[in-house]
């Protein structure tokens, strides 16, 4: 069995018939820097046609553009970011972000960090972590370009977040994952089930650390762009069982309820509060909101 047959057979058993997809290019307007209507007018005057993404507040699909939307003066001025539509979901599901203390634990290249700061209207504090100088430089460039003011970046592994000796109202865990076939045409050639298992183990370590640093009444948003249940539903089932966390319902008019039965294994019913997105107009994605089940003993 080829890797492609192996994985597409798994998707079939999980309820999705594999087909090749073309992900639509999307942008997100940085509302801290410009009014939506002003930017749309400016871009349209340059021949860029936009379509509002119905399930996002500040997201637009690029319908037509004569040139790269990643090289316009408006992009370089930080008036918008190029951010795939599904990738705009995680930061938008926190209940309230303004004036909060937020941890973005796996922040580079910074699309969601900038989005979070924008939703906070640059109030409060974002602590953004990542490793490797190259990734940190990319993150810093995004912050400078988009005029973010409320963020501190540390070169720190998400699995060491408790070294900061801080507690957070909101923790964004857009964890390193195996990715998916929609954004990587060579995905089937590059990935094996061993990669998936290795990533799932790393993700559990990051979840464990997040559970240590979130406030008692705080929220964790966990997301991946992986279609593999080991990195999605099975990890959340494990977190419910082992980290004293519970899921919170995500209201979103896109995607499906996450799976509560994976290859015959029954999972916690509350996992259907999470959202699973199979590739289509967007890439594949998984988003889950978690809260502490019980307050910690002091």
């Amino acid at each position, binding site marked *: 069995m080829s890797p492609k047959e192996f994985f597409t057979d798994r998707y079939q058993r999980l309820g999705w018939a594999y087909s090749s997809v073309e992900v639509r290019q999307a942008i997100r307007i940085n509302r801290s820097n410009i009014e939506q209507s002003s930017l749309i007018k400016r871009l349209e005057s340059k021949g860029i046609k936009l379509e509002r993404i119905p399930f996002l507040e500040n997201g637009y699909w690029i319908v037509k553009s004569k040139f790269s939307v*990643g*090289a316009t*003066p408006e992009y*370089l*001025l930080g008036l918008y970011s190029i951010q795939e539509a599904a990738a705009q979901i995680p930061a938008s599901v926190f209940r309230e972000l303004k004036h909060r*203390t937020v941890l973005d634990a796996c922040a580079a290249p910074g699309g969601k960090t900038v989005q979070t700061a924008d939703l906070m209207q640059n109030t*409060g*504090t974002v*602590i953004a972590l990542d490793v490797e100088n190259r990734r*940190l*430089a*990319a*993150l*810093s*460039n995004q*912050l*400078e*370009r988009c*005029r973010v*003011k*409320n*963020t*501190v*970046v*540390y*070169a720190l592994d998400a699995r060491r977040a408790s070294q*900061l000796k*801080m507690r957070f109202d909101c923790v964004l865990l857009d964890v390193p994952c195996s990715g998916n076939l929609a954004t990587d045409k060579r995905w089937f050639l590059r990935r094996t089930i061993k990669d998936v298992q290795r990533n799932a183990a790393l993700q559990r370590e990051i979840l464990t650390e997040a559970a240590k640093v979130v406030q008692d009444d705080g929220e964790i948003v966990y997301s991946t762009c992986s279609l593999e249940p080991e990195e999605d539903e099975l990890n959340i089932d494990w977190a419910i069982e082992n980290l004293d966390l519970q899921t919170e319902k995500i209201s979103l008019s896109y995607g499906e309820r996450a799976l509560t039965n994976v290859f015959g294994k029954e999972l916690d019913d509350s996992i259907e509060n999470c959202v699973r997105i199979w590739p289509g107009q967007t890439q594949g994605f998984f988003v889950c909101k978690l809260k502490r089940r019980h307050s910690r003993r002091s």
Partner: protein
Amino acid sequence: MNEFVTRLGATIRLDNSLVAETRNRYFLLSEDLKKVLSEDFFYAGIYLGKVKGNIFFPSFNLLRMITEGEANKVTVDEKTEWLFICGRDIFKQGIMKVSGSKKKGDLTLILNMHDESLGLGKILHALEEERKGATIKNILDIGDFLRRER
């Protein structure tokens, strides 16, 4: 940094207690950020610029902050905006408005028609003079965000 700002015919007041430095790079913090900042940070708040070999290199954030007050400013048309962010010098016919110094050798901020800061230039020939060819040399432009990633 103050010397650089003065060269643009501008003044800027920063609370020094809110300025943080790491690896010769300078950042302006809010009170909230100052409370949580630890010494080993990589980036924080508003990046102001860096010092390399005794020369100060401003950030685009700092240029934007200077733009908000009185300073040497040149506003360019849309075509020149595009050429400038591609790294090109500015020709006289692309200049729509000049504020502050027009003197050869002075630094000036370059703005687009929306009064947004595109970067920094050096006046090559007095801006009153009618001349062919480049009038303002491109010193720094926002196209740098793309060049850095290459």
